[in-house]
């Protein structure tokens, strides 16, 4: 699989502070890549470097196989982006805003513009929007409009920074469905977020940023792969230890963690011994646990943002 985003030794220094400290990102075609990190961990700076807004102190950025920011004029028309919330000209309508941004750069044909605008407005759920100026939009509508702008040229790569900000739960679900649908049709999605749940539900690959360093980067399925233990829920936790002597890894109320990657086997032995089992599952680490383990205790202890 070819790399859609690749950075090598990416560094951004602000004075003495290393906001981004040697990041090697690897996002492949077809990924829904979750870029996780607390606020101030360097996520936004990294996203800005990917798009050529912030110039790296050291290291290289390759986007769709070409060097950034040098090849920006060729590459960026194939990329849709939502960086740190949407921004529009408040006195213009949503359609006018989309039309202006589309005309402002290469790769957006004027002849198809109107049709493309209607299409993306439909996609983000703003198909019926009237001519009112953007300043009258709700936060969620603005977020949708920003997403529409990112989708305007049917990009191969979507770089989205907190795309569900300001949306209600239904909106979040809609946008998630939209992103998954786009991804099924071949769009690579790079999703930067501090919401673990969002990333867990959407992403196939995850990178975790902690104080400017990429502490983890792997497939989500591998990160949350079964640990080789089974979680048993039983009202008589004390008896499990007697039945499965030596295999009990921990007891927490009526949850008992038992070594053994075959729940059926565990179930059979417990039921045979007359222990009631109310639930049974393979133990998988949550993304939260993975992130906490990787980022250590300091994931929420971050230097003051500059």
């Amino acid at each position, binding site marked *: 699989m070819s790399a859609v985003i690749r950075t090598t030794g990416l560094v951004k220094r602000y004075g003495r502070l290393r906001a981004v400290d040697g990041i090697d990102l690897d996002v492949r075609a077809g990924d829904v890549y979750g870029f996780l990190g607390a606020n101030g961990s360097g996520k936004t700076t990294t996203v800005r470097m990917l798009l050529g807004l912030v110039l790296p102190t050291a290291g290289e950025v390759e986007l769709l196989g070409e060097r950034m920011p040098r090849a920006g004029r060729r590459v960026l028309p194939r990329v849709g982006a939502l*960086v740190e919330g949407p921004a529009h000209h408040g*006195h213009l309508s949503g359609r006018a805003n989309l039309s202006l941004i589309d005309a402002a750069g290469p790769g957006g044909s004027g002849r198809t513009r109107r049709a493309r605008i209607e299409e993306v407005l439909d996609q983000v759920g703003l198909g019926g929007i009237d001519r009112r100026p953007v300043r009258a939009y709700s936060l969620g509508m603005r977020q949708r409009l920003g997403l529409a702008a990112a989708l305007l040229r049917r990009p191969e790569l979507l770089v989205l920074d907190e795309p569900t900000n300001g949306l209600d739960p239904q909106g979040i679900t809609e946008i998630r469905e939209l992103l998954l649908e786009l991804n099924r049709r071949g769009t690579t999605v790079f999703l930067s977020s501090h919401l673990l749940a969002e990333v867990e539900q959407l992403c196939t690959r995850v990178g975790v940023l902690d104080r400017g360093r990429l502490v983890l980067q792997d497939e989500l399925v591998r990160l949350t792969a079964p640990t080789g233990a089974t979680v048993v829920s039983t009202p008589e936790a004390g008896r499990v230890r007697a039945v499965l002597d030596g295999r009990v890894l921990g007891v927490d109320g009526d949850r008992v963690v038992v070594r053994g990657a075959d729940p059926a086997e565990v179930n059979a032995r417990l039921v045979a011994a007359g222990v009631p089992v109310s639930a049974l599952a393979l133990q998988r680490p949550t993304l939260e646990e993975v992130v906490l383990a990787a980022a250590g205790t300091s994931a929420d202890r971050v230097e003051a943002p500059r």
Partner: protein
Amino acid sequence: MIGVELRKLFRRPRTWATIAVLNALPVLVAVLLQLTDLAPRPGEGPPFLSAVLTNGALFPLAALAIVLPLFLPIAVAVVAGDAVAGEAQAGTLRYLLVRPAGRTRLLVAKLLAVVAFVLVTVLVVAAVGYVVGATLFEAQPTGGTSVSGTSLSQEELAGRSLLAIGYVTVSMLGVAAFGLFFSTLTDSPLAAALGALAVLVTSSLLFTLDAASPIAPYLPTRYWLAFVDLFRDPVLWRDVVRGLALQGVYVGVLLAAAWANFTTKDVTS
């Protein structure tokens, strides 16, 4: 790109409000002049204003002379200062740049949009001045009298008025370039506009100071009034040519500085 910038500028209500305010002063002056019939004494007041009472066809020029020293440059400074910093403050700058609108292209497009604003503003002031002059004062259909006391045919007067409009537009380029340069330094459009105005005030002040006479020829406001020279007969080109060259130098240097700053700048807004 330039089309986008023009659409942005002229679809903005604030732009037209600025132009309207700019026209209010000459109109007010014209009404007062008509009511009181008191022309400014020789050597005082804006050029051409005293001549308006006898020939209303000169009012477009008087109107330009009225807005030239202060109102017009303020409007230009505000629009130019808003050019990049305004987008940065609204957050739209990052979307323009990832669109991608190349940074150099964006700068040039912004400057051209400001120039277009100046041109439209000056034309509107001149047009409103013409209408006001023709309705409130007696316009002489035969043309007018040059500053040197020779008669100008209507065509000559119109031609020279167009030249003057062009010259006033170019005169504002220096202010526009200062505004644009400051606009790339800060994310606050207000700070950028104030910076350009500070340059303007400094220049106007130094111009009146004898001690500053060695640098007077290089002050951006030095040749602003040279548009009067276009109405001398024969035309006195010296200051007009110098004014054009000086504005060219300011635009060149400041655009280069804006380019050096903006193309190597981290956009974090």
